[in-house]
């Protein structure tokens, strides 16, 4: 859905009008928490976030002069994460994730689906509470694994911010637009009319059931006041750029969903032209990994982090993950360093890994092996989830 200039102006005027109405409050309550998971399929090189581990060996071009000590034991690569800004870097922590997996598909699936087949993001979204109109949204085309709904908590696969804006009540209306009360009653009728088909196709039509339930929840919530033209501009987009693709469009849409109070948002994809996805083999200098991060992710990520870390009334936690980091020769390592940013987090490194050759070693955290489940446990703890479905969080930054 592309928005015309006229529609955008009317949207902005409607927003200005809404701000003058007493009680026309933002839908998101105070300190609404959203966890944003940024996933790089192919791998997440730890030279960005934990450059110091490579300096003594001189791997990937890491030296004392191109790394930046940001305090709290965090030393980042100057040309990539080092450009995120002091305020953002002070709220960054690194989690060691020792999963022992060196195969791409298995690593991607294991990061997102637990050993019993339950979706990690959906478990987290459910633990964060049921008040959100949209519990979990996927903006990427690269989510691995099957994410079976948990109760009524499902993943909404989104491809167009315009459709999101319309469903959230942000888009301008005209005589051919249904009003929200009529639409909500109508879609409830649609759901009842759909019941026989949905009952007979519980798995193949689970996204239809989740979509109808989700839109009814969204229409039952107050319209969200979002200045979409301003959000788009912050990411270098025109307001009509609503189809999701690269990281700029995904992070702009993620910001919409943050303001709408979404619990979990999944972002990801891409990869530098010098490699297949983020699988930067033979990149002994680290230049391919650096150029990919700079050219593809870093600009929108920097914008998103700086805006959401300073967003009043919101606790936005952003984590960046990938299959694994790189061992000697830029081969697959069996572990990962996931970086997390949040306005209430303390900086630091936990479960740091040590490159030792073709494989790596790790530093235990509170006597535990820090694994994938512990990463999700940390995110649940940082999100202040009512219960932590992933067990005790060993990482000490909350």
């Amino acid at each position, binding site marked *: 859905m592309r928005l015309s200039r006229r529609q955008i102006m009317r949207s902005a005027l409607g927003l200005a009008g809404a701000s003058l109405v007493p009680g026309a409050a933002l839908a998101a309550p105070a300190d609404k928490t959203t966890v944003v998971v940024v996933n790089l399929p192919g791998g997440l090189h730890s030279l960005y976030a934990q450059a110091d581990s490579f300096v003594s060996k001189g791997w990937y071009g890491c030296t004392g002069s191109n790394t930046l000590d940001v305090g709290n034991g965090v030393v980042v690569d100057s040309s990539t994460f080092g450009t995120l800004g002091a305020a953002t870097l002070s709220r960054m922590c690194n989690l060691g994730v020792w*999963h022992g997996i060196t195969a791409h598909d298995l690593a991607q699936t294991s990061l997102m689906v637990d050993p019993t*087949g339950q979706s990690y993001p959906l478990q987290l979204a459910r633990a964060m509470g049921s008040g959100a109109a949209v519990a979990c949204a996927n903006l990427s085309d690269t989510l691995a694994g099957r994410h079976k709904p948990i109760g009524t908590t499902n993943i*909404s696969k989104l491809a167009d911010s315009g*459709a999101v804006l319309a469903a959230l009540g942000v888009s301008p209306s005209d005589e051919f637009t249904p009003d929200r009360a009529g639409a909500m009653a*109508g879609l409830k009728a649609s759901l009842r009319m759909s019941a026989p088909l949905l009952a007979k*196709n*519980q798995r*193949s039509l689970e*996204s239809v059931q989740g979509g109808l339930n989700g839109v009814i929840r969204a229409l039952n919530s107050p319209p969200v006041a979002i200045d979409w033209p301003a959000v788009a501009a912050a990411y270098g987009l025109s307001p009509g750029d609503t189809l999701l693709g690269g990281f700029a469009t995904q992070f702009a849409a993620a910001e919409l969903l943050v303001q709408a109070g979404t619990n979990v948002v999944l972002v990801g994809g891409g990869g530098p032209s010098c490699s297949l996805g983020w699988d930067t083999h033979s990149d002994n200098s680290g230049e391919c990994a650096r150029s990919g991060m700079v050219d593809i992710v870093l600009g929108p990520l920097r914008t998103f982090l700086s805006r959401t870390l300073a967003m009043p009334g919101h606790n936005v936690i952003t984590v960046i993950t990938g299959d694994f980091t790189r061992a000697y020769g830029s081969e697959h390592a069996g572990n990962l360093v996931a970086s997390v940013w949040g306005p209430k987090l303390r900086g630091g490194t936990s479960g740091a890994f040590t490159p030792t050759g073709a*494989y790596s070693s790790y530093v235990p955290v509170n006597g535990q092996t820090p694994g994938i489940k512990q990463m999700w446990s940390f995110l649940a703890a940082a999100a202040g989830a009512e219960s932590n479905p992933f067990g005790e969080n060993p990482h000490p930054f909350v």
Partner: protein
Amino acid sequence: MSPLRATLGLLLCACSGTIMSPSPSVPGELAGPGSDPSLDTPIIHLPAAVACNGASVGRSYHGFAGETLDANRLPLGGGQDLARVRDGSDLGTQFGGRSLDLANVTRSDAQAFGVAPSNWYEPAEASFATAYRVYALGFEGCLKKLKNPANYHPFGHADFASAPTTESATRQCQKMGQIMWWRDMTPEELAPCVEYAEEVRSLEPVPQRQWAYVCAAVAGSAGFLVY
């Protein structure tokens, strides 16, 4: 135990169980198993192999990394889970041609609903946003048709000149189903449509808009969204 039973037992063991983390096997600078407790950590529990047609024993397949290639398979009953979500190109055809003659189903709409690239097929998925967009497009298309009696085609009935009644709603819901779903509604599907047509009278005063809401609800249903 007979050799045959022992062999069958081994084969079955190979088809189910637990994949362990890979152990480093290269000496030297590597973290050895003794220093790494995670090497004994199970990372994936394989489900029992899925069987076909009620057979008691199924067969499981593993990838090069030891992952279960059939982990997502579920035993399904006959005739279950055959329906699929229409993708963007199909919905565009439905809206633009056969049903509602909507001119504003754009290329980006089609992409928003998912369009399968050439030589590949990724099943389309619905979401809260696409559900709303289909409903809103349905409302727009229906209202544009019903605002002018000369344009009552494809619905073609003077019922739209006045508010829905039980009789007219029964007649028109069925007709809308035939046009947009390509089939008759079942009694279980028809009843909520008629109920909503009666409910909408209290939500909207203008008859044509009342009918447009009913029409949009039919468009927003699984009968239209799936094939």
